[in-house]
C-alpha cells in the first residue's frame, strides 16, 4: 500500500519543553492508524502539526507526496485532510444539518448539492433524524458524531480523529467504532486516530504507534504492541495485558 501521510523526523518544542521529539512514521493509504500514549506524550501536538495548527521545528510532513508542514489549517483541509477536535467544537446556534453543510460546501458547487451531501453523511453517522436540532442541544455522544460528520462532509482522503471516543460509554464507543469501520471498508478512507480508549484502538486500528515523552517507542499491530515491554511499562500498565 502506498503511504498517504508521511511524518519524517518531526520535532516540536514549546519554550524549551520538547513536546514531540524526532518522530517518524507513515500511514498507508486505506488503513486505520492509531497513535496512543499517556497524557502529555505529545499526541495532540503531533496531531496539531499535521492539521496545520503549528509548524514543526524540524522534520517534514508529507501528504500524498507533497510537503504540508507549516501550511494553514484551511489549506490542509482543502488538500484533503479532515479533522475533529478533542473538545468538540460544533457551531452551536446552527442546526445539525447546517453544521454539516458548512463542511460539505468545500467540495460541492452550491448549497443544494451540499445539503444532499450533508444528508448522506448524517445518515452514515446516525444523525439524520436529529438534523433539524440545534447543535447546542445535542448530547455529548451525538456531538462527537457531529464532529466526525462535519469533517467527513469535506470529503477528505485522510480523517484525523482526536480522542473521538473520550468520555463515551462502551456502547457508544462500539457504535462509533462500527461506523468508522464501515466507512473505511466502504470508501477506503484513511483514518489516523489519537486515542486513549484501548478497546477502540484494538478493534479499529491495523497499526499503532506509541508515543512516550514525545518520542515514538513502538510501532506495530495492536496485538504486538500490547506485548511490548516498553509499552506495558510506560503506558498500559501490567494489569492491562
Amino acid at each position: 500500500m502506498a503511504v498517504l501521510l508521511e511524518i519524517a523526523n518531526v520535532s516540536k518544542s514549546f519554550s524549551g519543553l520538547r513536546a514531540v521529539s524526532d518522530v517518524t512514521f507513515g500511514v498507508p493509504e486505506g488503513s486505520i492508524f492509531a497513535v496512543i500514549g499517556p497524557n502529555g506524550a505529545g499526541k495532540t501536538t503531533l496531531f496539531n502539526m499535521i492539521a496545520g495548527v503549528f509548524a514543526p521545528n524540524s522534520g517534514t510532513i508529507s501528504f500524498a507526496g507533497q510537503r504540508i508542514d507549516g501550511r494553514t489549517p484551511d489549506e490542509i483541509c482543502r488538500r484533503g485532510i479532515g479533522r475533529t477536535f478533542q473538545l468538540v467544537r460544533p457551531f452551536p446556534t446552527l442546526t445539525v444539518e447546517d453544521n454539516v453543510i458548512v463542511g460539505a460546501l468545500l467540495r460541492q458547487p452550491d448549497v443544494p448539492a451540499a445539503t444532499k451531501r450533508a444528508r448522506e453523511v448524517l445518515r452514515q453517522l446516525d444523525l439524520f433524524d436529529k438534523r433539524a436540532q440545534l447543535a447546542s442541544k445535542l448530547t455529548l455522544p451525538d456531538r462527537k458524531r457531529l464532529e466526525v460528520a462535519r469533517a467527513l462532509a469535506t470529503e477528505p482522503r485522510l480523517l484525523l480523529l482526536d480522542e473521538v471516543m473520550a468520555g463515551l460509554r462502551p456502547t457508544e464507543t462500539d457504535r462509533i467504532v462500527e461506523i468508522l469501520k464501515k466507512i473505511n471498508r466502504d470508501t477506503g478512507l484513511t483514518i489516523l486516530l489519537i486515542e486513549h480508549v484501548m478497546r477502540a484502538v484494538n478493534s479499529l486500528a491495523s497499526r499503532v504507534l506509541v508515543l512516550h515523552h514525545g518520542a515514538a517507542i513502538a510501532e506495530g499491530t495492536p496485538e504486538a504492541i500490547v506485548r511490548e515491554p516498553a509499552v506495558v511499562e510506560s503506558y498500559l500498565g501490567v494489569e492491562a495485558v
Partner: protein
Amino acid sequence: MRSLLLDGVSRRVWIALGVTLAVLLIAPLIVNDYLLTILILILYFAYTAQAWNIMMGFAGQLSLGHALYVGLGAYTTAALYVHFGLSPWLGLPVAVIVSALTGACIGFLAFRFRVAGVYFAILTIAFAEFARIGFDHFGWVNGSSGLFLPVANYTQSDLWNLRGKPVMFYYVLLFFTVAALALCHALLRSRAGYFWQAIREDEEAARSLGIDTFRYKMYAVVLSAGMTSVAGVFFAFYYNNLFPEQVFSISRSVELILAPVIGGVGTLIGPIVGAFLLTGLAEVIWEFLNAFGFDPPGAKQVFYGICLLFVVVLLPDGVWPPLSRALGLAERPDAPDDKPEA
C-alpha cells in the same frame, strides 16, 4: 437565484411580509407629515441595521464605527453634487467604492494581524474618529463649518437629483430597505452565508473545514461598508447639511447598532423590528409626555437606555426570536420535519 430568494420562507412569513409592505406602501397617503418623518427615520435605521448586521450578525465581526461609512457615503455624493452637479445616483457607485475600499483597508489591517473581538471594535471606532478629525480639516468639503446642499421650496420631486418632498425620500428608503432584506435573505442561504455563520460561531473550527476565513471576513466588511454608505447618500440629501462632528460621531455609530441589538443580532427580520420598536416607541412616548405637558430633555436617550437594559437582561437574543415563535413566523422552526427531504 430564484431559489435563493424563495427557499425556506413559509407561507405565513410571505403573508406577514406582504401585508407589512402593503401597509408601508400606502402609509404616506394616510399619515401626516410628522408621522411620515418618523417612518422615514424608522426605515433609515431598518436599512443601516441590516447593513451592520451582515458584518456582526452574520460574520461575527463587531463594528462600533459604522458612522464612518454613512459619513463617507454622505460626503462623497454631496461633494460631487455641490461641486460638479453630479446626480446622487451617479455619485452613489463612487460612494460605495470609497466606503468599500475603506472597509477593505480596516478589514485587511485587522484580519491580517489577527485583531479580533473588542480590539477589532476599537479599531473601527478609531477609524471613524480619524475620519471625523480629518474631515474637520478637509477644505474641499468645507471642514468643520459644514457642507450644505442647495435647498428650495419644492413643489415637485426631482428623483434624479433627490431634491423634493419627504414622501420621495420615504419611497427611496423603502425600496432600499426591501432590497437589503432580499439581499440578506439570499446571502444567508448562500455559500458565503454558511461560511460567515461558521466563522461567527467558531473561527478555528471554520478554518479546519477549509474555509479561508480571512477572505470571507473581508467580504463581509466590504459588503457591509458599501451598503452602509448608501444610507449616507440618503442622509446627505435628506438633511441637506453635513458636519463632521455630527456625521462621524461615535454616538451615530452606537445609534445605528441599537436596532439590530434590540431586534435580534444575526436574524433577518430582527434589525427591522428593532428599528420599528425603538424609533416608533421613542416617538410615541415623547408625544405622550408632551401631551401631558412634560418636555423632559434627553427623554429619548433614557428610553433607549431602558430598552437596551430590558433586552440585554431579559431577551439576550433580541426581541425577534421569541416574538417570531409567538407569531408562528420563526425563521428556523426547531422541528425535524420542517424541510422536505431532497
